[in-house]
């Protein structure tokens, strides 16, 4: 294995959070970004082909080793706990925020047809949602958006990986 690729692998292995190409480049300053990206692709493919217990995945703008989804039942046994489930209400609120961000609470209320106060609070506590600022209208209401942790938890590279609203609409009309 090439030395550079080995170094990249080591960096990812040792880092706690998904690590970005830029961050890897801080260590490998003499290596071109494109080369790092190429090595990363190689590594992703290698783990994919190996089909072992974990994969190298691109998530939340970085790379991270993650266990294979189909092994979840064994992993939850290890964790000795029930997986943290989110209520449907919280999921719906999260979906509206993810697609409409930055969005004010009254808009989320309107779309869901209920007061989303409590689910919004739990999403903020879980750090899946954050305050993005205030809207420049009378009353200056707070605007909400999703966090990096949202991407990590939902296994997303970035927000563009979500199906678009148009795609969802088409899907709906298809059924």
């Amino acid at each position, binding site marked *: 294995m090439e030395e550079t690729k080995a170094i990249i692998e080591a960096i990812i*292995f040792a880092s*706690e959070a998904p690590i970005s190409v830029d961050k890897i480049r801080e260590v490998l300053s003499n290596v071109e970004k494109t080369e790092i990206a190429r090595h990363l692709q190689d590594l992703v493919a290698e783990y994919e082909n190996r089909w072992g217990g974990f994969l190298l995945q691109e998530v939340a703008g970085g790379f*991270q*080793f*993650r*266990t*294979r*989804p189909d092994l*979840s039942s064994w*992993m*939850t046994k290890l*964790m*000795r*706990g*029930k*997986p*943290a*489930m*989110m*209520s*449907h*209400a919280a*999921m*719906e609120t*999260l*979906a*509206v925020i*993810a*697609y409409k961000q930055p969005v004010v609470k009254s808009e989320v209320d*309107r*779309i*869901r*047809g*209920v*007061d989303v106060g409590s689910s919004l609070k739990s999403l903020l506590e879980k750090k899946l949602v954050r305050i993005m600022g205030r809207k420049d209208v009378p009353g200056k209401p707070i605007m909400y958006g999703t966090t990096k942790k949202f991407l*990590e*938890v*939902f*296994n*997303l590279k970035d927000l563009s990986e*979500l*199906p678009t*609203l148009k795609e*969802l*609409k088409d*899907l*709906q009309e298809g059924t």
Partner: protein
Amino acid sequence: MGYEVKLDIFEGPLDLLLYLIKKNEIDIYDIPIALITEQYLEHLEMMRYLNLDVAGEYLLLASTLIHIKSKMLLPAQEEGDEENEEEEDPRAELVKQLLDYQIFKDAAMQLEQRPLLERDIFIRGHSVEQQDAETGINETDMELSVFELVEAFYRIFSAAGQKELMEIDVEKMSLTDRINEIMERLSEKKKLTFAELLGDYSDRRMILYTFLALLELMKLRMIRVYQASSFGVIRVVLAAEI
């Protein structure tokens, strides 16, 4: 704790309405308002009968439905009335709202089907949740705020006050000593309850110092304090090793 029947079948009035439309196999663009309103109100009645909390939003939509129904009962505009010829269907706004909601309901479902961290996928190392499992703390335990700790302290303090005796020769103790003592005991046992920390001491000074030490340690983020329910056992855990 008593059992509470939770029947949150519907995520809100729009969800209920969508359910009724689907159940009756109705074209969403041509909702028979009279029928749907009737069924909607029946469901509200049933929910109330089951002792479910019928939130105000349900009632608001009920009144919207009735409003639309009455509007539709009015005779159509006269032909000569050119300006109002293209008057909007009174249902239009509601239909738009329903379609919007449906999209996000689907979006939520799609999100939920993704492989989720700590449900389907796991990362290396000890996550906070896992550490909590090791220390025997459930996810349902709430992390305590200072206020709840103050309350708990007040209860113990007032209980101790009843058997207070006059004592002149108070052993000298400092807050630093108490902090060190607590940290020492915690590093031995990993977790302790508030009562265990106090031990048999019931004198006010000791309780006070223990309390102040805990507050200080919480502030320094060296410990974490949990409680499963109000008035439940308070558990103190070392915050290190995260």
